[in-house]
């Protein structure tokens, strides 16, 4: 084996095709997109050199700032929601349901496999205010409260988006974290119990530290997914009302393909890439420090 991997030709033959495909389908478009940030215009109007104009626009664009704030708010709320609910579910699977968790796990996982657009339509109807009153508002009215125009203002639309995306993906994180929890040796838990730890104490001192690596992976998965959210919001609110629930991705899409400004769209994409990179590095760093301290 050593001889094979020591041979440069072998490495080239083994890695070459994959590297070539990767370069063509990933690196080339990425560099291409980076190049666009220096231009303005579209394939229809033609491109003209813009230098750093797109970047200065990005810094002063109120729409971009609003989209950034929305993206961060969404990422934090939904990541915390997804991972926390997922973790609670996984604890439920391991410590309460145990062997019987199969059916529940399947049911909770089910929304993950549903198409996003179908889920969005479901939630649109669920939270509908007009022309028909949806089940949620009917319930509120039955309880003597006023119905809420959920999609009528940015604040309440955000609540629906967050609830939908947490519901949609909690099953995935529950299964991911479940895999981490079942890896905790039974003897460790047993000895902790003998030492008198139980309930929250057991979770805090034994389960949480031992499942930390998979928890961190979940957070990284989740935060990168949520920073790049597009389909669920596009299908549920279309970024509305007005532009009240527009994340950076949707702004980028609109800028490039609706407004025909590929350069500025690519600049927004670049900003989003930097954001994802910084957040990921930050989480990795924080995590590494924790591990060495422990």
């Amino acid at each position, binding site marked *: 084996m050593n001889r094979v991997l020591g041979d440069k*030709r072998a490495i080239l033959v083994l890695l070459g095709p994959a590297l070539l495909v990767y370069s063509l389908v990933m690196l080339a478009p990425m560099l291409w997109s980076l190049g666009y940030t220096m231009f303005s215009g579209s394939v229809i109007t033609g491109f003209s050199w813009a230098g750093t104009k797109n970047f200065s626009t990005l810094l002063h664009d109120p729409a971009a700032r609003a989209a950034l704030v929305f993206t961060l708010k969404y990422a934090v709320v939904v990541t915390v929601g997804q991972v926390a609910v997922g973790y609670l579910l996984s604890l439920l699977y391991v410590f309460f349901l145990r062997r019987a968790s199969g059916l529940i796990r399947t049911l909770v996982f089910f929304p993950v496999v549903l198409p996003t657009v179908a889920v969005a339509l479901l939630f649109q109807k669920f939270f509908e205010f007009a022309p028909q009153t949806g089940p949620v508002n009917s319930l509120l009215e039955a309880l003597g409260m006023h119905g809420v125009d959920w999609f*009528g203002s940015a604040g309440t639309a955000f609540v629906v988006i967050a609830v939908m995306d947490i519901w949609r993906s909690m099953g995935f994180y529950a299964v991911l974290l479940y895999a981490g929890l079942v890896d905790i040796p039974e003897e460790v838990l047993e000895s902790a119990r003998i030492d008198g730890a139980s309930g929250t104490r057991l979770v805090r001192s034994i389960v949480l530290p031992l499942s930390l690596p998979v928890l961190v992976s979940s957070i990284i998965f989740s935060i990168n997914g949520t920073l790049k959210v597009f389909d669920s919001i596009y299908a549920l609110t279309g970024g509305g009302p007005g532009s009240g629930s527009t994340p950076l991705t949707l702004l980028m899409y609109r800028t490039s*393909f609706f407004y*025909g400004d590929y350069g500025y769209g690519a600049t927004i994409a670049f900003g989003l890439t930097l954001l994802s990179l910084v957040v990921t590095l930050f989480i990795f760093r924080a995590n590494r420090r924790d591990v060495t301290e422990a």
Partner: protein
Amino acid sequence: MISMHKRHRLVAVGVAGALTLALSACSSGSTSSSASGGSGKTAANLNFLGINENKTIAATLTTLSKNECKAENAAQPLKISNQAQGTLDQQLQLLAGQGALPQLFIAANAPSLTQQLATQGSVQDVSSALDKLGVSGDVLPAATSVIKNLYNGKDLVLPTELNIEGIWYNKKILSDNGIQVPTTWSELVAAFAKLKAAGVQPISQAGKGGDGWGVTRWVGDYIARDLGPTALQDVRDGKAKLTDAPYVAAANAIADLGKQGYFGPSPTSIDYTTALNTFLTGKAAFIYMGSWAVSDFTSATENKIGADNIGFMHFPTVDGGKGTADQMPANVGTAVAISAKDFASDTATQAWVSCIVKNYGTVALRDSGQVTGFTVGSGVTVSPLSKLVQDEIAKTTTSILWFEAYFSAKATTTSQNDGGLLASGQLSGADFMSQVQADLGS
């Protein structure tokens, strides 16, 4: 072993070659998209890109393909695909970028985009095409004039619609509540107040996403009535800004209607079809709409209040305003553009266009009650509502365009997406205008 170096070099050359090929393929895709001419081959189908919101054009073309244009259809069968109106502009940009526009397609929502496509060479100049085919006489001069007004002097679309716009009302609701047809803005607002107090939704208008154009039409017309018919051209020409006080006052007038709840509960949840349905099932008294909706008004399945129960009024005058009620919002609505590349080289497509121009006006009026910018053959009996539209068009001497007609795609999207918020009273006139003005970029 002598071949080792050679093989090394071969692999390197191969990799470099593949990369170069791939990159050059990419670059040719984006730089030479305005491919000229063609090989003179006839396309297998006549592809038409329609929109979900407009069924009349597809239905009329289908009828033509079975009757008047049977021969043309045999040579090049009609193939229709549909797109949501909200994403049409994006689709057109993508298709144009790839040089893959269908022969016929609905012109972009933003007229500025159709002009860009024409400048780039993707959209056929209609006047020259019709001259070439010898069918110029089949398009009404009034339609050509509206089109040129819209596209900065260029004739870029086939007038598959010639619309007037205004406020349609439910006669029964008005008489039940003792309301005379309003002629001034203050009378109209008083009528709204009376209806609201009586528990009737005064206006049905869509405000969901891009369907908010129904609301911004009110803003545009108010501006025209208050500041005169050229007020929006002044904005285009940089002589005025939407953030100037008189323009903001117009937006505030509409925002006030929203604050009073005259647009019904949650206009941001209502799409075009729902808004039309609300009016046609007698749940609202007024709707601002173009005459393209006459086909819905005359449809027994959609209209539950009866066609003779629907009245039409001009957008009312504003007290002390420079505009008059006879200045009619008119446009060619959903119009069809022709792909320049295909038209130039494809004789079957040319024959189709010629047949459409000659027969579309008659079939659309006969079957759908749609008034178009084409001449109409004799002996077509029309519904009273279509007759009303024809008469109004004939009477029109000054036409005005809609609020976003001169806007960029970006400002159009912002304006129409914010329309719903204006109607729900969540956005002030000043904020609305400053957002749209910011996207106009001047």
